[in-house]
């Protein structure tokens, strides 16, 4: 098998500055059909990469490949120079660098907002202290700041199951920001929010990106939002990447047309 770097240098669309590389990646959940069918993708450091595509296309699956929750059946992936696998001990050291906001949010509903957000800091906290829920003051004040940013300062002590859908989304975003990731994977984080809140959240992430040199891979349903915020957009349909472009290369109508067209 050729080494990843050889494959990458052989294809000049891959920049060496990329932190995610995928080469002909196929995945299967049931061992029969393929959900993703030969994806090539590369995400450059510091960029905002947005994935769009119809429901069931395989967008969430693609994101889970990046943090090692899904393992490819065929093909190569490297993230921070490692093959992602959530069960692999070498990759464990990389996992704290990757923030992940799943489509279902993955919040602990019986814990408070603050406790959920502090979970993002857990990889940095000593095991004994975290067992007794003792967090350094710095972590707590950081978490408070982030909760201010997402507008949840008055719900800090609330149990998560009592929050609205939009508030839960903000908690999940806050947890990911408190983690101080280098790479943020966000699966439809603004879907349930109104337009103004969606913009607020996106601005917040863009602001964080500038502050801490974050690379982001996001999934969005809203084409306009993708055009407004992306450095690069990929469209996924039926497990294939049918297009990849810079937002200034395509007009809204063209993108929507491609989105809605039957042939892929």
């Amino acid at each position: 098998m050729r080494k990843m770097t050889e494959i990458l240098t052989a294809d000049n669309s891959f920049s060496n500055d990329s932190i995610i590389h995928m080469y002909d990646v196929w995945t299967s959940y049931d061992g029969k059909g393929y959900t993703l069918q030969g994806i090539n993708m590369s995400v450059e450091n510091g960029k905002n990469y947005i994935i769009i595509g119809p429901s069931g296309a395989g967008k969430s699956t693609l994101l889970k490949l990046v943090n090692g929750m899904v393992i490819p059946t065929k093909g190569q992936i490297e993230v921070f120079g490692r093959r992602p696998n959530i069960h692999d001990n070498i990759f464990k050291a990389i996992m704290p660098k990757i923030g992940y906001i799943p489509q279902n949010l993955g919040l602990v509903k019986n814990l408070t907002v603050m406790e959920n957000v502090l979970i993002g800091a857990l990889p940095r906290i000593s095991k004994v202290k975290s067992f007794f829920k003792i967090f350094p003051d710095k972590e707590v004040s950081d978490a408070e700041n982030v909760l201010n940013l997402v507008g949840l300062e008055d719900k800090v002590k609330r149990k998560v199951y009592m929050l609205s859908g939009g508030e839960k989304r903000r908690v999940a975003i806050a947890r990911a920001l408190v983690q101080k990731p280098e790479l943020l994977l966000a699966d439809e984080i603004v879907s349930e929010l109104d337009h103004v809140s969606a913009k607020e959240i996106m601005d917040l992430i863009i602001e964080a990106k500038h502050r801490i040199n974050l690379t982001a891979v996001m999934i969005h349903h809203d084409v306009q939002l993708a055009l407004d915020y992306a450095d690069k957009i990929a469209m996924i349909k039926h497990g294939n990447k049918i297009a990849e472009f810079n937002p200034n290369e395509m007009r809204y109508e063209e993108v929507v047309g491609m989105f809605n067209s039957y042939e892929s």
Partner: protein
Amino acid sequence: MNPKDNLVIGIIIAILIFTSFNVGVDPTQFVKGIPNLMVVVEEMSHVDPTLLGTAFWSMIETIQMAFIGTIVGVAISLPLSILAARNLYSKFVYAPVRAFLAMMRTFPSILWAILFVIMVGLGPFAGILAIIMYTIGFMSKLQYEAIEAIDSDPMEAISAIGVSKLQLIRYVVVPESAPHLLSQLLYMFDYNVRQTSILGLVGAGGIGFYIINYIKFFEYGKAAVFMLVVLTTVLIIDWISVKIRDRYIVKAQKGVNIKI
């Protein structure tokens, strides 16, 4: 009903008749025995109220035994149930732990009590040990089933950021399975009070000791006092646990604040 169902029912009835014959089931004796029961009931109605104090204090002892046994047993069963959960540990961990727990459950509490009476002598301590053992076997099973039923979304999302297993347990498994734990704890305590009430039969302390002794000497009136106290206590505990359950657990399921 199809012929196959009829056949199955026919076979069950045949087995029932066969086994009843084997173990000497005799309905006529039951009928003939009714007057005997009447004698006992009549004697029991001569309740001896002077014993009420003793009955009360031995019931208090029983409740204390059940309380210690439940709390210690549950405390030990928690780590065991985590090790036995299939969504947390590999087969090499959960399979032996489950086998061990299954083995513990095969012993009824009265057998544990006999064992501990031999080990540590007569008295409440043996009874407490028996309750602990029974609680471990039983609670662990209830609890690992609760752990396996918790939502996999937060487990996956939080594992993906590279937290340790202990942190995952502390921040996801424990809070997400805690509402079940409270309900199971109540159930276990309720059940353990009933169980402890009969452990005195083998000399392992508690109110059962009086009951068995008075019955041995045909003093049904005196035994009745103790039995009435057990009955009342069990009803009260039942009532209290229903109240607690309604207040905390049912509300929690509806998504109202719960305090754990």
